[in-house]
């Protein structure tokens, strides 16, 4: 049963006529054509589908799109402003905090929410905050370095 669902996406209002039980992930990837948010496991276990709702990192694969009615959703496509990368994006690219790149949008969005709440996290806080985002290429060391670098530069 389709219904109208409205929310803010990357700073702009969107209104969709959509089955409200469908996941935010696939609505983003199909109806809205934003493919930066990835499908990895479908069960909230890997973090590839992480987006930020308000100030919280949320797994979009199990979240029905109706749950974001009236909310602010930020995806990886929303971080770059006027052609300028977000400091986290800059730091991931600079330190090589990625290999195949498939987990990268979810990593960056999770780190983005982490820094919103705690702009100067310690290394153990970063490790704990990123723990449930998986990277099979095992770029963990450089991902942590990237987040530290962005935090040192005052990213938020």
């Amino acid at each position, binding site marked *: 049963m389709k219904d109208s669902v409205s929310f803010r996406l990357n700073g702009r209002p969107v209104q969709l006529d959509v*089955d409200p039980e*469908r*996941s935010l992930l*696939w609505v983003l*990837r*199909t*109806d809205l*054509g*934003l*493919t*930066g*948010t*990835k*499908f*990895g*496991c*479908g*069960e909230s*276990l*890997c973090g*590839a589908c992480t987006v930020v709702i308000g100030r919280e990192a949320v797994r979009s694969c199990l979240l029905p799109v109706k749950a974001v009615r009236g909310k602010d959703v930020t*995806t*990886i*496509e929303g*971080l*770059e402003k006027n052609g300028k*990368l977000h400091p986290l*994006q*800059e730091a*991931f*690219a*600079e330190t*090589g905090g*990625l*290999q*195949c*790149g*498939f*987990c*990268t*949008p979810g990593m*960056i969005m999770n780190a983005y929410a982490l820094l919103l709440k705690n702009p100067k996290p310690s290394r153990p806080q*970063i*490790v*704990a905050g*990123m*723990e*449930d*985002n*998986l*990277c*099979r*290429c*095992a*770029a*963990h*060391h*450089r*991902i*942590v370095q990237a987040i530290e670098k962005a935090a040192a530069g005052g990213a938020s």
Partner: protein
Amino acid sequence: MSGARPPLVTPPTPSEASLSRRRFIRLVGGGIIVLFNADLSDLMGQETRTRGYPTDFNAYLRIAADGRVTVYSGKIEMGQGVVTSLAQMAADELAVPLGSIDMVMGDTALCPFDNGTYGSMSTRFFGPALRAAAAEAKAVLVELASERLKAPKETLRAVDGAVVSASDPKVRVTFGELANGQKIVRALDGKAVPKSVAEFRLMGKPTKRLDARAKVTGKAAYAGDVRLPGMLYAKVLRPPAHGAVMKSVDTSAAARVTGAVVVNEGGLVAILAPDPEAAEKALAAVKAEWDVPKPAFDDRTVFDHLLKSGGAGQESGRKGDLAEGEKSSVFLFEGKYLNGYGAHAAMETHTALARLENGTMTVWNSTQTPFPNQAAIAQAIGFEKENVRVITPFVGGGFGGKSGGGQQAIEAAKLAKAAGKPVQVCWSRAEEFFFDAFRPAAVVKIRSGLDAQGRISLWDYQVYAAGSRGAEQFYDVPHNLMRTYGRWGGDSPKMHLFATGPWRAPGANLNVFARESHLDVMAAKAKADPLEFRLRNTSDGRMRSVLEAAAARFGWKKAAGPSGRGVGIACGIDAGTYVALVAEVKVDAASGRIRVVRIACAQDMGVVINPDGATMQMEGCIMMGLGYALTEEVRFEGGRILTKNFDTYEIPKFSMMPVLDTVLVKNDELSPQGGGEPALVPVGAAIANAVFDATGARLAEMPMTPDRVKAALAAVRRPGTPP
């Protein structure tokens, strides 16, 4: 194809090759195009001879009128970084800025044939071909410039995308100007001389990934990110267990779901819908009955099965006489080492989008083997190979798991053909764990001996199902024999219930675990320091140097094990690269958990093209290695795969990060060797040896899970067993 000048070398042109070549030139347009025509069989070794690698044209490079250089490579980028290192090679040899290179990879319509991206071969084997092509292109440009500038070739040099007079820098012409209006096809005869290491300008320098910006912005496209008008998403009916046979299927209820299209094509039952969740819902309404056979073994009994089903062994490395070796030994040792099935578990599941248009099936495919997949798709849908095009966007991790038959691509192509619309197949994580070509479960048995001087006097090595990679002998053993039973490729159906295939450094992770664990057992008996014991027993200079480099970086202090400190060392050779690794662990006896605290790793990979990329590969290998060593194991029973997602298949996480130190041992005398796999191979053994050093307990099965650690600790505590 004739241009302003005829090709300077006319290669023999088999009809298929010239057809593809004409098509290629039509597709890419004018400019200066270099085809590599040398026989690559020496470089590609056995691979070419057994699989028929075409020797006609193997590297493409095009210089356009705007000065941009396009490199066409049948290799694919899956995170290993060749999109950057290949660009470095081309730019350096051609004398253009790195930023003027565009890479086109893994597109069967544009790129030269390639067997696939695996075995750490891109830099080793495609690299020299590409460098030669670029060196040749530079020679052509200098020749053209010599005519244009009316100056002898000897007085000109290529710098930063232009040919310049050595005596007067104002006398110059850019590559773009030279290429403008040209249609030059140059077939390379292999005579161009690539640069020596001393002449490197971009190669050998740490270089940032060229794909980083696309990947941090979410703009990098993977197979699942391609969107076409009217495309449908498929969900395919799957069997409940391996070996299951469908008895009946009823799709009538699914067909009534709004928007769902049912396809039933020769056993391929699928639902197509405008979004994957609608397809999933309709698929749940499909009723199917299956005959599920009872297989003879499960994940606990598989090792006995392997030992029985290996058939006649293949001998290699025979030296001396085993009976003689036994006689000369004062101590004899026997060991058995096990490893269960492992999954590749790339973050991107197998995905393909297929579109049939004007008689051509185009498939955007997440694969390490676009060309073999092209052939497989063509055969599956009854097309000529020329009418199937495989395009490989960025691949979201492979590790060997995407080098298989292209099942997802075949499914997408069949469904697109049946539906008359573009169809995407994106496997769920459970499908990924079900159809993965697992690293085979395998067994190694070693019988060995030590003489009175503490030297290895006997080495009798038997490996079941893993193959011999990584088991080749580099210790100085007078009486040696290796026997290999079964292979992970061809013998799969005989030995395993499901597909098995190459898993990053295939076979080598277990072989090195077995050999290096066994070495430590012998060192402990000899009351020797494990590093000193290895140095005593190998005269191989490259191995000695990486052992010494890793130990120095770690700060290794001599002691016989178990010393209680929890440090272990292991070494190996993979893809031509030598690697040694020292691990320090803490073992929590109560929980059985192993915590890897620190790792130092040294690697000699010959000439290093991109030190930054090579280091990233080492770090990734080591961190990934913690998974196969400690946590990763596929569970199955009755042909059903019980491991369905990341809650039951634990891959390395942030909290497992050890302090990491990597060393690239300089060896510019040797051409570039493999980098994508070597540092993975010693991880398991170094950890097992460190656990022994900490506790006196020997772990002979990977993964070294808490239960297995506790069992091993209990075994050393038993009365009468030495601590």
